[in-house]
């Protein structure tokens, strides 16, 4: 991953025109942002050209940014905890991930098929996208950089236990590890095992244990964290 030599505070869509700021006239123009990279200039240019041609509307991009911002692992955690607490929901979730998400008001906005992989005492799942970066974004948000890295993509399918160990997750030899590769149309989420000692936890306390990494499968929910 190369360093990007620009300011992370550059404005959002439509907000990156220095001349748009209405400051007192006696000042030299103030450039608020560091110089954008070539690639950021390309992004701005393509977006503006498509808008000028009437192919896209600026509000579509803004709306999609709002959709992306509204998604986080908290949604996946709600589904996991509901499955832990409600056996009927659990079977619906494992049978049809899309319907089980929609049932909780979570739209699968990218029209992908969501399959939920149920961990058992004898089987642990971990997800990867060897081709690129396919990930259940509607329920987990955008993936971390390491998920998209060549190292994770190459090694998870070859030596999953070594990869899991790098995340501090040691799976006992007698537990089978299943690696599930994702595609453009098929996405996966791991349904982790509910940890022992959480019998008296309420839903909110349980959700706090279900982190993003437990639903990717590189970590296990733990009450000691």
């Amino acid at each position, binding site marked *: 991953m190369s360093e990007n030599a620009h300011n992370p505070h550059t404005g959002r869509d439509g907000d990156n025109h220095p001349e748009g700021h209405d400051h007192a006239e006696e000042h030299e123009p103030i450039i608020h942002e560091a110089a954008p990279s070539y690639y950021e*200039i390309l992004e*701005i240019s393509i977006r503006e050209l*498509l808008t000028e041609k009437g192919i896209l509307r600026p509000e579509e991009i803004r709306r999609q940014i709002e959709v*992306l911002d509204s998604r986080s692992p908290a949604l996946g955690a709600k589904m996991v905890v509901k499955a832990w607490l409600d056996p009927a929901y659990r079977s619906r979730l494992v049978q049809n991930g899309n319907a089980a998400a929609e049932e909780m008001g979570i739209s699968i906005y990218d029209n992908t098929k969501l399959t939920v992989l149920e961990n058992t005492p004898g089987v642990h799942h971990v997800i990867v996208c060897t081709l690129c970066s396919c990930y259940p974004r509607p329920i987990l948000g955008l993936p971390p950089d390491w998920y998209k890295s060549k190292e994770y993509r190459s090694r998870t399918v070859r030596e999953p236990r070594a990869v899991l160990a790098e995340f501090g997750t040691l799976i006992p030899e007698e537990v089978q590890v299943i690696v599930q590769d994702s595609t453009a149309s098929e996405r996966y989420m791991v349904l982790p095992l509910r940890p022992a000692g959480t019998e008296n936890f309420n839903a909110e306390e349980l959700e706090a244990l279900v982190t993003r990494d437990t639903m990717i499968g590189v970590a296990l929910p733990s009450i000691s964290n």
Partner: protein
Amino acid sequence: MSTENLVKHLPNDIGGTGSSDDKIHIFERDLYPWEKRCHALLDVLDYHKIVNTEEKRRGTENIGSEMAGKLSYYEKWIVSASNLLLQKGVLTPDEIAVKTAEVAKRYNLVL
């Protein structure tokens, strides 16, 4: 032996020079605003059925091993989108050249 199997099982076409044995660099960061805009732009192009996920992915791979190795994730995305929009005739090279020069000028840059 039927040749059908060859057609049904296409080779993996990941760009670059092979797999990696390196340790995973585990860290967290927020996306830069332009990266999120780039993500949203490609999502919207998908909704309009102009560039789909698989085309975008292939576009990030067939840029040669040097670029595949040196560009960051969203740098590859925007290069892929730009190449695909040119191939599909949605944009022309001249339009991109004129617009990028104009955008650069706003920031007192010359491309």
